[in-house]
């Protein structure tokens, strides 16, 4: 303990005159004057040279964002500038988004990365401004003449580093776009930003390697067909061990009625595998004539996060395989960005799929007219219809050990407008469901903080920041309703929300919707169920049945 305290006058002098940690950083500086600083946890590993070669992108080399010298090619500025021109000519949306923003600020506090860090460059308007400033300098008369006065600046290495940092601190979730009076889609600007970064040879491995793997084996992890089959079969064995019911998934079976495609995270990752088990139990329960494909073994599409050509190529396998196998239509599993690609791009990129039929549920006869053009139905719609038509035997009490809340995945809620179907299913398979507060769900949902190919472990700090607004809404329902289960219908959510919950809200586990369906299904010939699919104890079902508590 100090025995000689300083005098007040001395302290005051010290506080006023000495530089101090207590006085903040760069006070009053404009955002343009603050350089980016790469430090552990705020950057993703650069793409490996062999991956870049496989994808045919520029300048394969070993480098790290932390390096002083990024070993850029001679003339990289020209490549980026030409790339920008090409895209401005090709995509009217991009041109419009570069010109139309009036900087009203409606989006400023809507980004989860901004809310989790306070960094002004994470305001969507400023993030776009990083690119607009270069656009003005290169492509507008006012920018060429008045330069900095109109917020124009040349493309320098510093600017490129800024792009690299901030276009990888956007998950393309589009929450900001909901509030933009002009409907500017920040995700599209980020997509263009990442394409231009590709031209400069500055890509990240977590996006590039899965895309390259997909080209080679059909899935992000690079798993070969026999292993894929083997793992799915072992999940079928797990179902048999736990429920006594045999399920028989088939692979690459020609003539099946339906091709089922789901993200590979459901097949290989924990807790995605339990959702996969749920699907297989459901299909067995209703006797669906379906097949899996070891070629279209990935619903996800990391091409979306790097370039539109890459996205198109990876997506093409869905229709190719459906045509080869001669199925009638495609059923898609719980995934986020897969549905963004399917819903918004697939039809014009790789369609029309005139060799398929308009999807009709073979169990209920329901026509999915919303999928008339893509011929691909979302599993939540499919299951909601089955429940609505009374085709499933469910005992929601089997999920009584779970007090659930529902996280709307950005791409499903905002990307395709599906909000009610998963909730309808959830309400029918469990008795305790409580919504998170308004403005944090449905079309205003907060992102998990790890979407768009950023769910890599070296990026954990940024991900925890980006996921903070979502975690704060979960904290609220955890404290208010004792929620212990966060249900999501996206494979990236299922991979990235567990660490997010572990960090911010320990005690909340993450579940897939169809995992809960699998828990609740009363299957023919089943053994007595005392454990859920992840072998956690269910509540004693013989005790007095609990009533349903819905929070509408």
């Amino acid at each position, binding site marked *: 303990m100090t025995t000689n305290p300083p005098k*007040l006058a001395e302290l005051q002098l010290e506080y006023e005159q000495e530089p101090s940690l207590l006085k903040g950083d760069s006070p009053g*500086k404009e955002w343009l004057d603050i350089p980016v600083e790469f430090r552990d946890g705020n950057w993703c590993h650069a793409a490996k040279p062999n991956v870049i070669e496989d994808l045919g992108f520029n300048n394969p080399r070993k480098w790290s964002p932390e390096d002083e010298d990024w070993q850029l090619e001679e003339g990289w500025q020209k490549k980026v500038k030409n790339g920008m021109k090409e895209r401005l000519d090709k995509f009217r949306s991009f041109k419009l988004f570069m010109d139309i923003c009036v900087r009203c600020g409606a989006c400023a506090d809507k980004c989860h990365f901004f809310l989790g860090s306070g960094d002004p460059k994470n305001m969507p308007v400023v993030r776009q401004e990083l690119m607009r400033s270069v656009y003005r300098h290169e492509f507008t008369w006012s920018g060429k003449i008045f330069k900095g006065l109109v917020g124009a600046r040349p493309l320098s290495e510093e600017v490129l580093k800024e792009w690299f940092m901030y276009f990888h601190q956007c998950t393309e979730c589009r929450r900001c776009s909901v509030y933009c009076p002009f409907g500017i889609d920040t995700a599209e600007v980020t997509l263009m930003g990442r394409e231009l970064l590709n031209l400069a040879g500055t890509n990240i491995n977590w996006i590039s390697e899965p895309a390259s793997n997909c080209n080679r084996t059909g899935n992000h992890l690079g798993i070969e067909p026999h292993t894929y089959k083997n793992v799915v079969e072992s999940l079928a064995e797990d179902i048999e061990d736990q429920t006594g019911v045999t399920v028989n998934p088939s692979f690459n079976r020609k003539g099946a009625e339906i091709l089922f495609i789901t993200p590979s995270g459901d097949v290989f990752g*924990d807790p995605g595998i339990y959702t996969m088990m749920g699907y297989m139990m459901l299909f067995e329960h209703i006797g669906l004539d379906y097949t899996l494909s070891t070629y279209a073994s990935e619903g996800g599409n990391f091409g979306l996060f790097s370039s539109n050509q890459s996205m198109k190529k990876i997506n093409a396998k869905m229709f190719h395989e459906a045509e080869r196998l001669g199925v009638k239509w495609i059923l898609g599993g719980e995934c986020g960005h897969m549905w963004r690609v399917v819903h918004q791009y697939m039809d014009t990129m790789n369609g029309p799929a005139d060799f398929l039929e308009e999807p009709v549920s073979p169990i209920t006869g329901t026509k999915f007219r919303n999928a008339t053009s893509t011929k691909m139905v979302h599993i939540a719609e499919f299951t909601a219809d089955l429940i609505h038509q009374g085709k499933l035997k469910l005992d929601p009490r089997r999920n009584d050990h779970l007090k659930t809340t529902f996280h709307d995945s950005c791409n499903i809620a905002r990307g395709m407008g599906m909000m009610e179907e998963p909730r309808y299913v959830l309400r029918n398979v469990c008795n305790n469901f409580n919504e998170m507060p308004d403005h944090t769900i449905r079309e205003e949902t907060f992102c998990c903080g790890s979407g768009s190919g950023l769910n890599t472990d070296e990026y954990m700090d940024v991900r925890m920041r980006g996921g903070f607004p979502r*975690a704060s809404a979960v904290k609220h329902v955890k404290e208010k309703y004792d929620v212990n289960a966060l249900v999501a219908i996206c494979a990236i959510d299922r*991979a990235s929300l*567990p*660490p997010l919950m572990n960090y911010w809200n320990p005690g909340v586990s993450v579940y897939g919707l169809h995992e809960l369906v699998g828990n609740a299904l009363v299957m023919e010939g089943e053994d007595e169920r005392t454990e859920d699919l992840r072998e956690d104890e269910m509540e004693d079902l013989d005790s007095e049945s609990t009533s349903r508590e819905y929070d509408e």
Partner: protein
Amino acid sequence: MSNTLNILITKNQDQILEKWLSLRLSFFSKQKQSLIMTQKDQFQNPIRHQLQEGLKDILENFEKKGEKFKEALEQICRILAIQDFPPSKAMALFYELKEIVREFTKKTGVGFNAKDWVEFNSAIETMTLEAFDCYSAHREKIYQLKVDESKNKAFMLLKKAGI
């Protein structure tokens, strides 16, 4: 008799909280004015809300400590541990209280003796060290999450390989 400075904190809690919060929020933004400072909605600005809650609990329980005090340190350090500023700056938050209280003594003309000041300083130091434990625990958690995640991604492959 209670420490004069602790009494001062209790009496001026709201003003001290306001000053402490705005000082800390200025670290989050590299600009003078930021929505992080002005947006008060609990869910639309969780940093402000959770820091405010935590700092309030610290001030309320500054003398008696206890579970609530510990939880508040946890809540604050959880936010600080993943920010882009270094540990020294994160921990500076707790020393800020010293400066704020000193200013208040000047403003309100409250007299205090050397013993009060020594005790108060010591309490701040202890709090900072406790907070540093929380901060480090959260940093360690981040590294643990990285390891867990790598394993979980290929869970079935590792399981099949018997690893």
